[in-house]
């Protein structure tokens, strides 16, 4: 049996075990198995595939295949899930649900059948919806329902688009679809429906209505899953369906889509700047950054596309790191407002340094991962339109402004009175953050292996 099958089925089995015996160590160990298999096989994993005629009468094949782009996203999932398992609040079902989500995401990022792609696309909502219901802030139920309805409303018409493609080409296979998409009737409508679904999930401005509440009300682990992994499903969808199946139409629409995405970049950045709450601030900064990734995908340029894919991975790592340190800070403060306390560097020096490191990565300081990705996107945009690149670079300044202002307000300035709960991070917490630090520096200083993988596409 192929690797793609094992990494899909092992988390599913593990979730069954965890449903009966919910133990954190067990969960983490089992969630690491796919990662170890991936590392063991290294680049041999590319090309691993499985195809089974699942439902012959409907034409659905259980068809998974790993290509270089899939591999990158699969790695991201394999790294982020164990980290969230380490910090997730222990409540019944949560561990099992996280493992189910891992399986569904692995399936989604390797699916080569359009019906299966849609199946995983919608299926991944359910574990997240349930997790948001179980743990998080006071208004979590409302936020969870809003999230679910937004998502389903965004993607319900996708079934019609999928069927449209099916009857135009006669197959659900993504490989055949990408070669025979030239003569599809209503192709523009079909692509528009797909883009709507991807826009809601990523989310692209102005389809982000669910984001502030969902990110804010979810627990730290839930927010990380939403921001680091779920948003990548939308970006991956734009790449797989938009760029691979409908390249000509997407190119034609490029200016309009670019305008929306750029508006999103600045909307996210400016809203983040005006926030009085640091969890919301990070949420809006995430919105700004994912829209920047979409800018990279919508610019019709090889370098920008490579940059966007790299940046998708980078954003996954950085946003996990940021929500992690924000979650730890909130645990100690018992609130997430900016203002009531300051000078925390005095009491929490290690957390402060860790936060500053991750903030630097987020504002794309040279030597960190985001620098490489953003540079590639800027490079691509510059080639197409230098003025646009100049305008976009304002976003970097803005992100430095709102991020550093937050760090300054909370960690520096006049120290507040010490409180009992202000304990610096423990060794265990530091170990949880360590893999992220390593990844940020590794991609920042030696991005060649990943760039090589990205170049292997198509």
């Amino acid at each position, binding site marked *: 049996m192929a690797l793609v099958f094992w990494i899909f089925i092992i988390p599913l089995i593990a979730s069954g075990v965890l449903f009966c015996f919910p133990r954190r160590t067990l969960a983490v160990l089992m969630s690491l198995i796919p990662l170890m298999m991936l590392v063991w096989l290294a680049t041999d994993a590319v090309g691993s595939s499985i195809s089974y005629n699942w439902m012959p009468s409907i034409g659905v094949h259980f068809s998974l295949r790993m290509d270089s782009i899939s591999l990158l996203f699969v790695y991201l999932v394999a790294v982020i899930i164990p980290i969230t398992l380490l910090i997730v609040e222990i409540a019944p079902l949560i561990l099992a649900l996280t493992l189910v989500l891992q399986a569904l995401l692995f399936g989604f990022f390797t699916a080569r059948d359009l019906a299966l792609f849609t199946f995983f696309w919608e299926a991944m909502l359910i574990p997240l919806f349930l997790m948001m219901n179980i743990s998080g802030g006071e208004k979590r139920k409302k936020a969870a329902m809003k999230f679910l309805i937004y998502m*389903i409303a965004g993607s319900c018409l996708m079934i019609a688009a999928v069927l449209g493609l099916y009857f135009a080409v006669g197959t659900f296979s993504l490989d055949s679809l990408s070669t025979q998409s030239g003569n599809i009737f209503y192709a523009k409508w079909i692509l528009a429906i797909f883009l709507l679904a991807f826009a809601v999930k990523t989310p692209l401005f102005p389809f982000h209505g669910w984001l502030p509440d969902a990110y804010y009300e979810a627990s730290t682990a839930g927010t990380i899953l939403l921001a680091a992994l779920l948003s990548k499903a939308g970006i991956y969808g734009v790449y797989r369906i938009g760029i691979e199946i409908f390249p000509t139409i997407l190119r034609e629409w490029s200016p309009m889509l670019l305008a929306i995405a750029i508006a999103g970049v600045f909307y996210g950045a400016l809203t983040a700047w005006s926030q009085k709450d640091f969890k919301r601030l990070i949420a809006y900064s995430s919105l700004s950054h994912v829209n920047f990734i979409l800018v990279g995908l919508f610019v019709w340029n090889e370098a920008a596309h490579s940059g966007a894919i790299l940046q998708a991975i980078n954003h996954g790592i950085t946003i996990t790191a940021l929500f992690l340190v924000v979650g730890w800070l909130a645990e100690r403060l018992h609130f997430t407002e900016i203002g009531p306390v300051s000078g925390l560097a005095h009491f929490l020096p290690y957390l402060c340094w860790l936060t500053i490191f991750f903030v630097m990565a987020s504002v794309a300081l040279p030597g960190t991962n985001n620098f490489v990705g953003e540079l590639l996107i800027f490079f691509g945009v510059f080639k197409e339109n230098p003025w646009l690149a100049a305008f976009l670079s304002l976003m970097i300044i803005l992100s430095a402004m709102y991020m550093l202002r937050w760090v300054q307000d909370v960690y520096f300035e006049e120290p507040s009175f010490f409180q009992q709960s202000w304990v610096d991070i423990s060794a265990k917490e530091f170990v949880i953050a360590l893999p992220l630090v390593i990844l940020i520096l590794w991609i920042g200083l030696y991005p060649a292996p990943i760039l090589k993988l990205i170049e292997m596409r198509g």
Partner: protein
Amino acid sequence: MSNFQAIDFFALLPFMIVLVTAIALLLVETFAEAFSKQYASWMTLAALIAAFIASMIAPESHQELLTPWIRFDALARFFTQFFLLIGIATTLLSSSFFQRFDASHGEYFFLQLSAIFGLMLIGASADFLTLFLGIETLSISLYVLCGYMKSWRFSSEAALKYFLMGSLAAAILVYGVALIYGATGTTSFADMSKGQQGILLYSGIALVALGLAFEAAIVPFQLWAPDVYDGASTPVTAFMAVGTKAGAFAAFIRVFLGAFPHISFWHEGIAFFAYPTLIYANIVALRQFQLRRFFAYSGISHAGFLLIPLVAGTPQAIPAMLFYLIVYAAATLGSFAVLSFLDERSEGVLLSDLSGLFKTSPYLAGTLSLCLLTLAGIPPSVGFFAKLYIFQVAFQAGYYSLVVVGLLTTIISAYYYMRIIAIMMSSEVSETKPLYTRPSIIVSALSAAIILLLTCYPEPILNIVEAMQ
């Protein structure tokens, strides 16, 4: 005319087993009440299982003696087995119900077996008269079953309502049959294509459609369903939600896809019902807090989905409908099985009773969530593929607007099904204590197993329904 042969006997065997046991139960109840109280459910169960085995053995028969009235083709066998399985599940739920509520037994199971006999007759009918006979046998038994809990406040009201509306529908149906007879000179499905077409035949078909729409609780003939489901006891409601619904669609398949495939005007006519059914049922279901009533509206909305392939009327319509019926039946029976654990009052289970069920009983809550996900058609459950199949059939036949309306209403349905799951996850625990009874455990475990099996390995069932084209 040929003589009665062994093959006819075998073909009729499942019907005879059910009928003879039903009558035997009535006699037992009359002469040995204590025995009946203890063993009636077992006898019913044994009869249904024996009938199921008999229907597996029975060969397809095209003998002339019976075929003018009853057909023994693959579709009939499928329906017979499907209805028998539904019967087995409801018998188990009923016996679990009687462990909670005290009521006499023998005639209850007599009525239930008669209802199942009626359903089997519908599925195997080859003539409007046998079809009508089946529908009436089913309905009359159900009128009594609805009012069976005599002491419950709403039961008699529900039964009377159902009886009045049902007789009206039966009258309309018979009137339609009479008009069709007038136009074609026959009531046999096989000879329908021979008669001349005209306004007489068309109005006959329209009236038959109205009569069947009542049975399937399709908008605007749905008004009886919520009150009747609400007033009847939970196992009877489960039987109506699954059995009557499936029976009505068996009749739709027999009449429209079996007898009138050559006439095209009814496609648009049925589409005219499908839109309001989908929209109305899904919107009203948003506001339901009593679960029997909730499942009435959920059932109406699924009837709307089942109409979609019927409108398309292509050869693939039958497998798509049958697959959807199987999935719907498994999920609905599973939900009712879970409800039967919590059913302690005549008002039935309220939404608030489910609060915190994930804490008190994760297995019950897990099963119910699985069933609700399947009903909502959200992956990862087979409900998604059942819906996909239906939309595929409609898309291929060119009914795009029906596909779009169907998809948009699934957003609403996702809300009300997922809301129940959210309530089960809440941290406040309701005071309802589940009462574990063996029959309900069997039904809920089997439904969950069937749903999981259909999700992972649907090929065998898909092959069976494929053969019905």
